[in-house]
Structures are given as structure tokens and as C-alpha cells.
């Protein structure tokens, strides 16, 4: 059978030689190893001061995007909730009233949109399922809480700020091909609004 690792050793029950039986050479060898580690570079990351670098496509806390005018993109179609393998997403749809055009992009919107962060496995399937480019995963961490209820994030925590300078940049999570594809006139309305696009 082929060895599964290059480090495997065949165990032999041979009688130990005298040098092996007094153990002291082996003990000294072991102590040399620990002493070498004593002077090695330490791997600890001192958390609050130092932070591990995240990958540009890190899948962290979700964001519900607004379009370039500040209207919510989400139309409460429910595809994200269907796609979600952990069943973490729930929503209640509502109809847009007159005068709310600046708040909601289309006639239907999500009145309640909740993600249970304890159920979420941060797979990103909701982002993949969304036809309106409304939900994205960001490189922000989900904050901790003392109670379970605090982990059910509603629209107050999910929707990005109206202020254009405080919008959350998710362009890193899009491949070049997708960004290029979205420039097609037919899909232009689905372009992700970012600062770079605004320029």
C-alpha cells in the first residue's frame, strides 16, 4: 500500500541497544529541540493591537446595499432565504407607498429582514442567489453579544448607511468578469454602487 505521508515510520519491536536503553542521548536530543524552539520567532498575534490580515474576499458580516441614489436594492423576493443552507434568513415583504420612491428602489421591499448570525455559516450562497445585487458579505466581523437575541440582526444592522461616503465597499468580492458583465446596458441597473464607480 502506498504510504499516506512521507513521515511514516515502520514500527519494529527490536530489542533496544544499550545506548537506547539508557535514554539519556534521546532525552538530550529532545531538549535540544525544545531549546531551539525557545529562540524561534513566536507566532502569537497580539489581538487588540495586532490583527490578522483578512483575505480580500473574506466572508464576514452581511450588508444590504443601497443604490447610487440611496434607495434599498432588496425587493424581498426571498431567493436568499431559499438558498440559505442554514435557514438563517427570514423576511417580511411590503408594498412601497407613494412618496417612498427615494427609500426603496422597486415597488416591493423588505419590511423586516433578519439574519440569525448564530445560524449563519457565512457560505455566501445568499449573495450568489441575489438577482438584485442587494446582499453581500463584507470583511467586517460579527460583533459578540451576551444574549442570543442580540445575534438576530435586523435591518438596523444590515442596511448600509445612506451617506455616500460611508457606503461599504464590496467591490473586492466581485471578480473582474462579473464587474465587466454588469456594465452591459441591460444589467446596468444591477451594478454595485461603490465610490470607485461614482468617480
Amino acid at each position, binding site marked *: 500500500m502506498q504510504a499516506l505521508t512521507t513521515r511514516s515510520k515502520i514500527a519494529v519491536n527490536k530489542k533496544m541497544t544499550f545506548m537506547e536503553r539508557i535514554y539519556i542521548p534521546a532525552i538530550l536530543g529532545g531538549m535540544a529541540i525544545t531549546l531551539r524552539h525557545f529562540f524561534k520567532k513566536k*507566532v502569537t498575534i497580539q489581538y487588540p493591537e495586532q490583527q490578522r490580515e483578512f483575505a480580500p474576499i473574506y466572508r464576514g458580516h452581511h450588508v444590504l446595499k443601497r443604490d447610487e441614489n440611496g434607495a434599498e436594492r432588496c425587493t424581498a423576493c426571498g431567493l436568499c432565504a431559499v438558498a440559505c443552507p442554514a435557514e438563517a434568513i427570514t423576511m417580511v415583504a411590503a408594498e412601497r407607498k407613494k412618496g417612498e420612491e427615494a427609500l426603496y428602489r422597486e415597488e416591493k421591499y423588505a419590511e423586516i429582514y433578519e439574519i440569525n448570525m448564530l445560524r449563519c455559516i457565512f457560505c455566501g450562497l445568499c449573495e450568489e442567489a441575489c438577482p438584485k445585487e442587494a446582499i453581500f458579505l463584507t470583511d467586517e466581523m460579527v460583533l459578540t453579544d451576551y444574549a442570543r437575541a442580540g445575534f438576530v440582526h435586523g435591518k438596523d444592522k444590515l442596511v448600509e448607511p445612506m451617506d455616500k461616503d460611508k457606503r461599504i465597499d464590496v467591490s473586492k468580492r466581485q471578480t473582474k468578469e462579473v464587474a465587466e458583465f454588469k456594465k452591459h446596458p441591460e444589467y446596468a441597473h444591477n451594478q454595485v454602487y461603490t465610490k470607485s464607480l461614482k468617480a
Partner: protein
Amino acid sequence: MTFTGFLIYKALLVLIVFTISLVIAMYSTYAERKVAAFMQDRLGPNRAGPFGLLQPLADGLKMFMKEEIIPNVSNKFLFILGPSIAMFTSCVTGAVIPWGGSLHIGGNVYPLQVTDINIGILYIMAITSIGVYGIMIGGWASNNKYSLLGALRASSQMISYEIAMGLAIIALVMHTGTLSLNKIAAMQTGWHWNIIYQPVGFIIFLICAFAETNRTPFDLPESDSELIGGYHTEYSSMKLGFYLFAEYINMFISSAIIATLYFGGYHMPFIDRLGLSDNFGAILGIVFLFSKIFFFIFFFMWVRWTLPRFRYDQLMNLGWKVLIPLSIFNVAFTGTLMWIFGRIH
């Protein structure tokens, strides 16, 4: 020197030795955590104060603030007596260790040793034997099977290894011709360290010192994976602290004894040829002794974070079937060599 002056000087020396033992034991806990961390590529405690230097204080404070629990089924008197004996025996051994030469102040000679009894080694052996009672009584009084098993292991282990330790010391005493630690330390001037004359005895003594202080690889009495905490399972608050503290003081004292018996005590080769003044030489001697002690404390930790624990039968095999015959052979070998070189008449 007047009698009152003598008393004040001795009381001061006792106080200093006691304080130093406690402070070193305190910072040994910090050093142990740092050494463990460094050997595992970590940083260790570094938040309390600069480099985490206040960590032992924080730990001590925590120990004092903990709830003190005495189990209902335990024997209360013995339950309190156990840690007291452990702490007492580990503190009193420091009395016979020569911490340096003598200071000459105002025509008086002040030896840096609390008491130079002429049976210093025997005294240490006797006190370490009593130290077993601290663990035994504590384990038995807890009325808990894990505590009792830990105490049984500890006492049988310490009794077994005391024999080999005593025999290793007999060979050393044959060579030095005295039981006084002061004379043994004073003999080892220059490079005449006893390790050169007694290498096998040193290795036996070192292994036994590990067993006597219950340090890895001989930490079976408190092997947490099998016995939870061993003999101190039922202990909490500062009574537990006493047990842990006693262990670190024991480690410090054992390091001091190893340094005194085998590594020239306060001597260092070639220093005596520099023609330093007596007082300066004595102070330098203290520095040398403590650097040796610190090396051995590090050595204790180094071994702890390298070797795994023995199995119980392996421990007994090593003690009875290897170390005792080897130490008897060492005694006979030393005697033969002394006869050949004409030191026995």
C-alpha cells in the same frame, strides 16, 4: 560580636533567606509560564505590567480572593495541617545552605549561612522526608479517592527515590569526608567541583531531585489526566496556593543543593586568582551561586516542557532496578578508587 548583635544578624539573615525563597518561588511561577510558552512558540503572560512581570501578584491576589472550601467529610485538623507541613518543610531547608563566603564588617566575621550544623546533608534528607507527610496527610484528610491515590503515589515515589538519593550522597560524602554543607562548598575551590569527581552520583542525584520535587517526568502524584489534581484535588484558595508554592520553593532549594553539592557552590574557576577583597569576593560568590541556581531552575522547567510523564511501573522500575543498583555500584567504585589512590588507610 555581642550576643544581641549575633541574634540580630541571624534574624536578619533568616528573614532575607525566607524572603528570597518566597520571591524566587513567586517568580518561578512566572518563569515557568514564560519558559513553557517560549518552548511552544508562544509569548506567555505579557499583559500584567511590563512583560507581564506583575502576573505573580495578580495570581497571588486571585488565590487569596478564592472561596475557601473545606469538604464536610474531611478531617478538618489534618486538612489544614497538610499544606502547613508542606510549606514549613520547604522553607526550613534553606537554613543550612551556604549562600556565600563570609562578610568582614568592623572586625566581625559574618558567614552567609543561617546555621552551619555539621550534619547539614542529613538535615536536608530528614526534612525532605518529613515533606512527604504534608502530601500524605493532605491527600488522606481530603477523603477523596483521587487525593488518596495521588498521595499514595507521591509517598511511595518519594520513599523509593530517597534511597537512591541517599546512596548518591554517601558516595559524595566518602569523597568529601564531611556532612557539613559549608565545608563541602568551601572545598570546591577553583575547578575542583564535585561533579568532576562524582559524575554518576550527580546524574543519580539529579534524577532523584526531580522525583523528590514531583516535577515532570515524575509528576505522577498530580497527573491531571489521571487523577484530576492528585493529592490537592479538594484544596482551594491559599491552601492550594501553599501546596503549589511549596513545590516551587522545593525546586529552588533543590537547585541550591545541587549547585552546592556538585557545582562548587559559591565558587567559580579562576576568580580566586584575581586577588579581590574578601567582602567583594563573598558578594561575587552569592552572584555565582544564584546564577547556578537560576540555571538549574531553568533546567527543571526545560525538562518539564520536553519530557512526557512516566508510567507508574516504569517509575518504580527506574527507581528500584536501575538507580539503586547504580548508586550502590557508584559507592563501591568510589571506595575502590579512594583505596587505589591511597586515601583510605
